[in-house]
């Protein structure tokens, strides 16, 4: 066993060692960071896509929609997209809008709850909700993401005039949510978060489909060059079977 060197090192040696150590560490970290960056980005994108597809049934493609200068715009490859409030637009295989997936968060019982929910403008209903992050009490509050019956509340939930939480089993109206027995506060928190999200975003959502012209190439409707407000051939909100000029990638009947 040899003890560390007992001689006093010069200041130059100390500074030199620390600088060298710092540089070596920095280089290694840059390398690992760059190596893992694309993988992490891909993971995040896949997770987001899964969540959006989950809360907007029937969605096969999605894209970000950002709030820029008080108005909504499609988020493309804009570099300023990262800091802007973002929601997600879902489309089905025909290019019709399935709805908007709105991520939102708020205080729960224990800590902040992060969720994403799907809103369908045509019916004025929430069509799906998924909890992204919660630290609620295991066995009680965590039922907000474990209880299938609670999740079913959000499959056709009217948002007018406002979503209202009611005691378990007493739901009679379309805009009510059955709370989980024993986890009332967590359930009410979820409702409150969605109401807040609606208050912030629903007024900004455009009627119809102003971005139909910018939908993916194979969905380009006839006459797109005539103007941006072009509606696709079939009514945008009907989940009708694909018409004859539909892209070759259509799937066989389910």
């Amino acid at each position, binding site marked *: 066993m040899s003890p560390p*060197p007992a001689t006093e*090192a010069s200041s130059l040696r100390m500074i030199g060692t*620390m600088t060298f*150590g710092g540089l070596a*560490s920095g280089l290694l970290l840059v390398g690992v960071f760059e190596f*893992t960056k694309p993988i992490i980005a891909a993971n995040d994108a896949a997770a987001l896509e899964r969540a959006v597809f989950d809360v907007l049934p029937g969605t096969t493609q999605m894209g970000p929609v950002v709030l820029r200068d008080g108005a909504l715009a499609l988020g493309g490859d804009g570099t300023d997209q990262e800091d802007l409030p973002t929601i997600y637009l879902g489309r089905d295989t025909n290019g019709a809008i399935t709805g908007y997936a709105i991520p939102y968060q708020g205080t729960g019982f224990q800590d902040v709850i992060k969720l994403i929910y799907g809103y369908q403008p045509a019916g004025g209903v929430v069509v799906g909700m998924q909890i992204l992050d919660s630290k609620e009490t295991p066995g009680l509050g965590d039922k907000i993401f474990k209880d299938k019956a609670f999740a079913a509340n959000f499959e056709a939930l009217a948002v007018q005039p406002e979503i209202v939480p009611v005691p378990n089993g007493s739901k009679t109206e379309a805009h009510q949510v059955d709370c989980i027995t024993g986890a009332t506060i967590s359930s009410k928190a979820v409702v409150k978060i969605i109401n807040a999200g609606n208050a912030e975003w629903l007024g900004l959502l455009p009627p119809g489909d102003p971005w139909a012209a910018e939908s993916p190439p194979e969905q380009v409707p006839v006459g797109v060059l005539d103007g941006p407000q072009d509606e696709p051939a079939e009514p945008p909100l009907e989940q009708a079977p694909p018409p004859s000029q539909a892209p070759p990638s259509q799937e066989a009947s389910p």
Partner: protein
Amino acid sequence: MSAPTSSAQAYAEFVKGLWKENPVFVQVLGMCPMLAVTNSAVNAVAMGAATLFVLVGSSFLVSLLRNHIPKQVRISAYIIIIATFVTVIDYLLKAAAPDIHRELGAFIALIVVNCLILGRQEAFASRNTVKMAVADALGMSAGFAFALLCLGSVREILGSGSLFGVSLFGPNFEPWVVMILPPGGFIMLGLILLFFAWLQERAKARRGASAAQGGA
């Protein structure tokens, strides 16, 4: 001084970390992650693996460079080395297993202040050859992981009715939820340490009894 074969010596360094000088049960180090990530067995194993990566890597480097690091800046140097390894495993885990990374959360980064790691650098790795330092690091990490797994398994079985995510008792089992909450962690670890203290007392009593019988 007589030198037993270096392999035997290395093995001895490895084994001591498992039981006799177990970082959690004997040295009472690394309590923060011990309690925080043992709410499930999977998290416990993941934390054990991450700590092993950091401890073995740091011990290796510190021992390798032990004659080149000036004494006055050694703690800062150790910290930079440890923090680098922690950052590396943080990014690697985030890329390879994002779900586990999210479960462990900030505690991966908190490995850097695990007194166990800095302690081993100061007490051992800086004073021994690379082979011994790595053996010691492996032993300590294994002991730490063993302790994590013990507590994690018990807490998950009692608190969730499952082990490694596999439900053990079926859907009618009413889990003892407090076990996966903070109070359960504290109390369970206390009971485990109590058990170890009892084992030690028994061993001492037996040694005392056999000593009293004389050396026939």
